[in-house]
């Protein structure tokens, strides 16, 4: 039912196959991800929600290749990104992370930040990279911010610049870790609009972590509700509202139904997490 939007992108299918992640600092084995399996189609926006500290970020970092997994494997278009025994994780420019607290380089201007990917990879000359960066910033309505430093730029604009920077490499996957968490609701709605427009242009696969259920339904093709630690999908909701979407979606009945449905599932899980915490504490 959501096939039309997805079919145009051919790359970027992620398969998380029975992944287990055990953190073992000082011998205290902590099971963070427990036999988690999840398929994300190419060009799909997969929203991940779940109680705080449930291991969503661990999963995201595994896909990014920042660390390996204890068992199971994660593949991207059939290529193994990380599996057990693969100590040297594969961090690639095909998967770019947008971090929770922002990670623009404060000593580079916004334009230099955006041009960073192609510059370090030497896929373009300096002039080409800057031209492309300027063009991409213009497309995202960010003209005029090129020569300012991130420290002089408002947080909403910074988040947009960071996403533009992530897309400069034309990655197949975008990994977003609560990217809009620190923003006020007004700025947030501007961000959602910008993200949807960006998605309409280049259907990139997204693994998008959030706590905001309305954001989840507005943006996602599917919403995965995770169990509290150890992390595993509890319920997967297909959001059958066709893309391209716009903020008009917010007024529809189907949207409200889906938000309610998700909220119930998340609440159950949050309560369980809370009770578990109470018992442990």
């Amino acid at each position, binding site marked *: 039912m959501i096939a039309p939007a997805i079919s145009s992108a051919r790359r970027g299918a992620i398969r998380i196959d029975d992944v287990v992640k055990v953190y073992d600092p000082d011998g205290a084995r902590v099971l963070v991800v427990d036999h988690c399996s999840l398929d994300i189609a190419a060009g799909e926006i997969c929203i991940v929600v779940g109680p705080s500290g449930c291991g969503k970020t661990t999963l995201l970092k595994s896909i990014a290749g920042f660390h390996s997994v204890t068992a199971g494997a994660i593949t991207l278009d059939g290529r193994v990104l990380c599996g057990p025994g693969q100590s040297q994780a594969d961090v690639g420019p095909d998967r770019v992370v947008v971090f929770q607290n922002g*990670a623009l*380089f404060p000593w580079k201007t916004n334009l230099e930040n955006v041009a960073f990917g192609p510059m*370090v990879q030497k896929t373009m000359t300096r002039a080409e990279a800057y031209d492309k960066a300027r063009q991409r910033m213009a497309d995202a309505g960010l003209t005029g911010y090129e020569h300012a*430093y991130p420290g002089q730029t408002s947080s909403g604009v910074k988040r947009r610049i960071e996403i533009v920077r992530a897309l400069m490499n034309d990655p197949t996957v975008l990994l977003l870790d609560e990217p809009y968490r620190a923003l006020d609701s007004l700025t947030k709605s501007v961000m959602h609009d910008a993200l949807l427009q960006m998605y309409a242009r280049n259907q990139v696969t997204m693994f998008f972590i959030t706590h905001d259920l309305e954001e989840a339904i507005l943006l996602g093709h599917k919403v995965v509700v995770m169990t509290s630690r150890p992390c595993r999908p509890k319920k997967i909701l297909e959001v059958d509202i066709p893309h391209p979407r716009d903020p008009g979606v917010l007024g529809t009945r189907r949207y409200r139904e889906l938000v309610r449905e998700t909220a119930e599932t998340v609440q159950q899980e949050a309560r369980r997490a809370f009770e578990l915490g109470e018992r442990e504490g």
Partner: protein
Amino acid sequence: MNEERGRDARMTHLGRIHFRVAEWFRHPHLYGMLVGYALLLGGWYLAVEVLRLPRFREMPGLTQVVHEWLSRDPTFGLSIHTPIYYSHIAASLRRIGIAFFLATAVGVPVGLLMGGSTTFREYVFPVFEVLRPIPILAWVPLAIILFPGSETPVVFLTFLASFFATALNTVLGVRSIDETLVLAARCLGASRWQVFRHVIVPGALPFIFTGLQISIGVAWFSLVAAEMVSGQFGLGYVINTSYTMVQYPTIVIGMITLGVVGTATSAAVRLVGHRWMAWRAKELAMEGR
């Protein structure tokens, strides 16, 4: 067209200078500073030459020092009109320059290595921890035994203090870098070397420059200590010999000169720092500092 642009640039440049000077005169900073100096000099003048307090009996007075300092024919042979005055300043500056340069050239890379490589840090840092608290004066005998002549021991001692300050601040700088910036650079496709060049070095730079400012300060401190013990020229030497030869006004001339030259070198380091870190200055300005 080009010429016109050049003139425009010059005009705005002049305008900016004019604006800054005007600002400076309007600002309470200047008057506070003048009051501060007036209090210091007035207190000195009063205590020594007007009230003649017994404690300050041997202390050279303000007028006496100024007279000696500006005299064409100074009683003790040292004033702004004698070439020897400038050779002393030059000797001290040269030693500071060499020592500071070496300390930076060695200290920054060592600090970056220590900050970046756990193995290197584990080997070297404990040694640092023990060597650092040893006062520079305690190094004097060893320095004289180890190095030939009277020049190299002085430079070595000056280098030593600077080196520790620079290296330790560089380590702190590297450790202060947000880990997510490194991860971000890596997933944008940066190699290890590129992470080092584009993230570690600029990220550590604010701390490195703080280190350099401390470094230039302690360099003067240990330079004077070293010159008083060993050395044939330099401001520390001037102060020490004037003391033994009971030329008290010259001591104060040496001290004031140290103050002025020391401030100038610190200001120069600060200026370079601001130039290199425009992003930082703008960030601080945004925060209203």
